[in-house]
């Protein structure tokens, strides 16, 4: 059976991740603190917020924080896969009846669970500072974030497939992921960018993730974002197909 060992491995990987000195703190506590801190500072400075500022606090910041959670998950995945490969752990696991896809799926599930958990903590903590945010459709937003994370995790996998060492993997992951936020339409709407940058934005997967997350946060219907979901699905399919071609186990 293909899924034999999947749940045990997933649960084990969660436990192992929590034992890392920076595991739980880095993944859950820090993003939440940054989110709360930023909200508080920006919120208290603007007694009478302008429309743009208010929009940023109520939509932009939650979306940004969520994206950071997703990107953290991706970089963490890239790093873990590289460490496991360098240490021969992937090879050792593969020398059992475990299917390769079971091993990799377990890691993706761990990261998705972590993303959802961090989001939940953030929402609970944010209730105090973001009374408006609570009216956002949290369930739909969580689904949208998981879809986005799933899609950009596949980019992470592609990176993990080709970079040689763990140290390098972390660096590349950061270099690829963070700049994408800049062009994603989160700070500057894609429509007002110069044509060249607009073209860049159109091919970056994060642009579609941002459009989806912002829309869903604002209460758009899913039908308004079929294109975004489709784009994210295409990214997932392409990156996964490429990874299976170039993935190295050792």
């Amino acid at each position, binding site marked *: 059976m293909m899924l034999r060992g999947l749940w045990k491995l997933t649960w084990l990987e969660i436990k192992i991740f929590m034992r890392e000195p920076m595991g739980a703190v880095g993944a859950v506590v820090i993003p939440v603190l940054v989110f709360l801190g930023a909200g508080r500072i920006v919120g208290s400075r603007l007694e009478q917020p302008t429309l743009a500022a208010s929009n940023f606090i109520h939509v932009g910041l939650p979306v940004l924080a969520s994206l950071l959670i997703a990107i953290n998950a991706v970089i963490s995945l890239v790093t873990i896969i590289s460490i496991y490969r360098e240490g021969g752990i992937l090879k050792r696991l593969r020398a*059992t009846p475990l299917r390769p896809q079971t091993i990799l799926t377990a890691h993706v599930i761990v990261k998705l669970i972590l993303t959802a958990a961090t989001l939940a903590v953030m929402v609970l903590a944010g209730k105090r500072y973001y009374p408006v945010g609570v009216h956002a459709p949290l369930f739909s937003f969580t689904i949208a974030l998981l879809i986005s994370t799933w899609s950009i995790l596949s980019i992470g996998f592609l990176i993990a497939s080709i970079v040689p060492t763990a140290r390098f993997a972390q660096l590349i992951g950061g270099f690829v992921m963070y700049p994408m936020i800049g062009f994603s339409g989160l700070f500057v709407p894609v429509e007002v960018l110069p044509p060249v940058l607009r073209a860049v934005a159109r091919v970056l997967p994060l642009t579609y993730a941002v459009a989806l997350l912002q829309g869903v946060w604002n209460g758009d219907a899913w039908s308004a974002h079929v294109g975004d979901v489709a784009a994210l699905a295409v990214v997932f399919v392409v990156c996964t197909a490429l990874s299976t071609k170039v993935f190295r186990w050792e």
Partner: protein
Amino acid sequence: MRPVIQVSGVRKTYGKTVAVDEVSFEVNDGEIFGLIGPNGAGKTTTMECIEGLRTPDRGSISVLGLDPFRQVYKLQDRIGVQLQQAQLQKRIKVWEAVDLWASLYAKKAIDGERLLEQLGLTDKRNAWFMNLSGGQKQRLFIALALINDPEVVFLDELTTGLDPQSRRAIWDLVRGIRERGKTVFLTTHLMEEAERLCDRVAIIEHGRIIDIDSPDKLVKRHCPERTVVLTTNDPVAEERFRAIPGVEAVNCADFRFTIHGRGDDLVTEVIHCLSENRIRVTDFRTILPNLEDVFLKLTGHSIRE
């Protein structure tokens, strides 16, 4: 009886480097079979082809009647594997690793706690992998290789990097595996290990197998030389020694004689000569060639070079 492992005409290249070339051998049921040779000789490549982790360019392999490439999952259900220089997750606990491995196989696993006890790991069952000593890690890997009660166990450079005491303990464990009726296939670059453990060995160098047999027979075939060293001040000794059948040379320095000859009977003949001529000796020892010498003879260099 049908051999457990059959390898015939296997070749594997990495780019332009030929790692393994025209390798053929068979491993019988219930024996400890060793693939011995220096680092880089092709031992691990050969083993990993048999385990289904690599695909050879040419040749055929059958393990327990299965094809390691097409039936890799079926095969992995029935074999136990210890890889060279493998690691586990740094913070996985010993019992968690055993528990995970136990859940991966179709067949019901053997009792993990008992296995840990047999391997002397019970008091380490809650320790993280990263905090284990080299010997404890190797014992854990043996546990993982045995958890599915495999029919064939593969051990790649099992004792490399261990101190002599841990090494001896692990040798006892491997003999224990054979006593349970399993077949063991191992690689080593330690000739002493091969001599002490293996029923049969294949000597491999530059990707080719040079000879296969039991360690004793290999020594007999390639190194029939025997040497006796003794000390005596008997004036007629040297003359008598030269007359012994099979003796080829006698050297003497300060009453210390080194008698070179060949054949299993040499030592008996020397003792016979001593008693017949009432030659008193104050020291007597024999130097027998071992696998190390066989390797030197077959390849022209020592295995450590």
